[in-house]
């Protein structure tokens, strides 16, 4: 089973990397780029788990390890 966990900064947290990318895009001539927020995703492959257990584990991995709930939010996506 494959899954992706997307982690991004909460909208209330300043993202200086995203801001720098936005201004780079603007200076490269891409018109109309209003905002860029940078995040990351993790591709995870799980073996030998029933789906409900896999989902539970992915949720726990995202919540406890991959994201810091103080500054980040996450989304778990099951690919197959």
């Amino acid at each position: 089973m494959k899954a992706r966990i997307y982690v991004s900064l909460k909208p209330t947290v300043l993202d200086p990397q995203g801001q720098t990318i936005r201004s780079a895009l603007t200076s490269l001539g891409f018109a109309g780029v209003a905002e860029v927020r940078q995040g990351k995703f993790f591709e995870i492959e799980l073996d030998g788990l029933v789906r409900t257990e896999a989902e539970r584990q992915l949720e726990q991995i995202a919540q406890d390890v991959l994201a810091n709930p103080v500054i980040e939010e996450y989304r778990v996506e099951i690919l197959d």
Partner: protein
Amino acid sequence: MRFGVVVFPGSNCDHDAWYAISRNLGCPAEFIWHQSQSLGNVDAVILPGGFSYGDYLRCGAIAKFSPVMAAVRRFAADGGLVLGICNGFQILAESGLLPGALIRNRGLKFICRQVELETVTANSPFTCLASKGQTLRMPIAHGEGCYYADERTLDELEAEDRVVFRYRDNPNGSLRDIAGILNRERNVMGLMPHPERATEPLMGSSDGLLVFRSMAAAFAVR
């Protein structure tokens, strides 16, 4: 008074802390490996600066799961003095021993230079020998030192007199200029600047020694 300095793989200010305590403060100091389940018989613990576990994922994110951190949690819950410097502050925040988080500097650059700090409170075991408002000079060296917490937490920190140090001239975008904070019980402090790198004239400042002297004085009267 006996100090323990925790050593994570990737710590690089552990020897600086050891030197500051044993040579310039004059107290015994020992290293504690990150896989230790116990802190031995130390009276205070220092989580030093560096890049624990390579700072992969997020600064301090992997370190919080190390065996020694379970021991640090118990030690803190029993009222032991815990000081987290730079990466140590990030680890304390990741572990939930201190509120908030340290994120990328607003200007994106790693900053390594001397800064001036305002001592916001002397009501702590880490600043009891300083006076409120006193300026201390010590260096910072970090890429992720921008203190972030939600408004409610920031208000709470201020209302409870838990902001210990503020930058006189905010170098990294930290909210409300915060450079160091206390837990509610006031026995755990995290700060981004390096007091251990300001403990003798040759280092350019001896102001950081005040933090360690305060800890020794606070320990002596309890």
